[in-house]
């Protein structure tokens, strides 16, 4: 499974980015840089991660730093699916 691509598709669908996520690299900042990502929208991202990747994410496991960039989010997902 290509985790980075999975994560980008989840971001695109959950946040309604209309394909913009396909141009993201691991260095692309997320929190603060994306108008679509806020404290309400993050719930949709987490739900979709759970649904598509079959992982369970506890509120205690994540914070703003998890969503600092594509790279930090991919890193987090890798620890969950490992």
């Amino acid at each position, binding site marked *: 499974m290509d985790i980075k691509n999975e994560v980008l598709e989840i971001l695109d669908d959950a*946040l*309604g980015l*209309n394909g913009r996520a396909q141009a993201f690299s691991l260095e*692309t*900042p997320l*929190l*603060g*840089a*994306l*108008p*679509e*990502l*806020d*404290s*309400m*929208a*993050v719930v949709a991202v987490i739900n979709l991660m759970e649904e598509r990747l079959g992982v369970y994410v506890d*509120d*205690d496991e*994540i*914070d*703003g730093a998890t*969503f600092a960039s594509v790279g930090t989010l991919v890193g987090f997902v890798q620890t969950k699916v490992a």
Partner: protein
Amino acid sequence: MGRLLHELVFDSAQRSPDAEALKYRQESLTYADLTSEIQRTASAFRGLGVARGERIAVWMEKRVETVVALFAASAADAVFVPVNPLLKPEQVLHILRDCDVRLLVTTIERVGLLASVVAQCPALKDVMIVGDADVTLDDVAVARWSARPEGVLRDSQVIDADMAAILYTSGSTGKPKGVVLSHRNIVEGARSVAEYLENTSEDRILSVLPLSFDYGLNQITTSFLVGACAVLINYLMPRDVINAVRKERITGLAAVPPLWIQLSQLEWPEGLDDHLRYFTNSGGHMPRPTLGALRQRMPGARPYLMYGLTEAFRSTYLPPDEVDRRPDSMGKAIPNAEILVVRADGAVCDPDEPGELVHRGVHVSMGYWNDSVRTAERFKPAPGRPGGIPTPELAVFSGDTVRCDADGFLYFIGRQDEMIKTSGYRVSPTEVEEVLYGFDGIHEVAAVGAPHPMLGQAVVLIIMASSADEALEARLIQACRQHLPVFMVPAKVICSESPLPRNPNGKVDRKRLADSVADLFADAS
């Protein structure tokens, strides 16, 4: 004593140049650092030809450059327009066009979203970009934040009666309106708040809320007025806020009801009482169970319950000592404001008689930019002006119904218009409805607010469609997410095959629709 917005920083730098003024992640600026950043940026703005009174919009997340750009606009005799970082390009376009923004400051991550927007803004001449990467835009010049030249700033030509900022806010109809604030509005607002919160240079104030919101901007202005430190965060999870309070040894925390509700449901670490001195609520009523839970989690912090609207910044606060005696009260007028409760004919109400809240004093803003009609509805001659004074004084008529008890404490009763108040934001029903006009298969659409235990109100969309099914609902929500900022997206869509109810004027009766969904979220806590 500082009179202009940027002088709040410059004066504190005179008194204590080495004190910490601004903190964001690993970055920390002293008052001397912040002053020189503001001066350098202001002189760069001037170098780009920005003239006195011209508008500089700032569309980026909270970060050091955001604060510097706002105060530099003031130091350059220009006017700053903070744009909520959650807005979509369509709403940013409305703001840029509505007040003829001359210069836009944004980030490299965001500028790509604006490629088609800038071409539609004839007044926009320059875009200044924070972040590294080469960008060109059609029709406007691009400047780099990192390449701001060193320059000497000449003294301000403006006085405190001149405009300093335009903050965009929604009403009950139409697109957001720009509330024009003078330097005096902002500086005196900071002074009133610092007085009742008893802020000092020892404070470390967390800036959680957007700077496009007068309440959020005030954490910064109050900090700089007293020489305290403002700590910026862009939070995603409520836990981020608690972690920042602990890590940064925060003394004052300001939030809105939806965030307080989330915070009240989390575990709080021990020891925050060593530094956390007070917390404030505005932007909606704090539910009593939430207040109780927060006081348990922060027993040493004093709660300040407040009320305000952007047009007059802040009107009332309830002194912490009164919270147990009158937990449902909005309190009394803030320092240097008078709050009246008036009848429809302008006469002052008797004790406990419901009437409209009217705010007079130094916080009353300069009106809505370029909109004399809606300004005349909200800004009217202050009641009780002695007949011998031939010039009018304008007061803000809030549209909120309140009562005042015999002891002078105010109580909120309800709103007179159809504006939706969700997540601490004002949302106009028509802003949401507009997105769905012309949508295939939909005949009528109305957006209303339904009471919601977390959000205050949730946006509910009621539509008449020829064939309603779940797929249509999903497409509507998708369309809203595409075009609207997150906080405006409806929480629920209700489809009807019959026409929506009308009021006697033949318009869709939003009031009746709102009543019909009043219990929709009664169990959703």
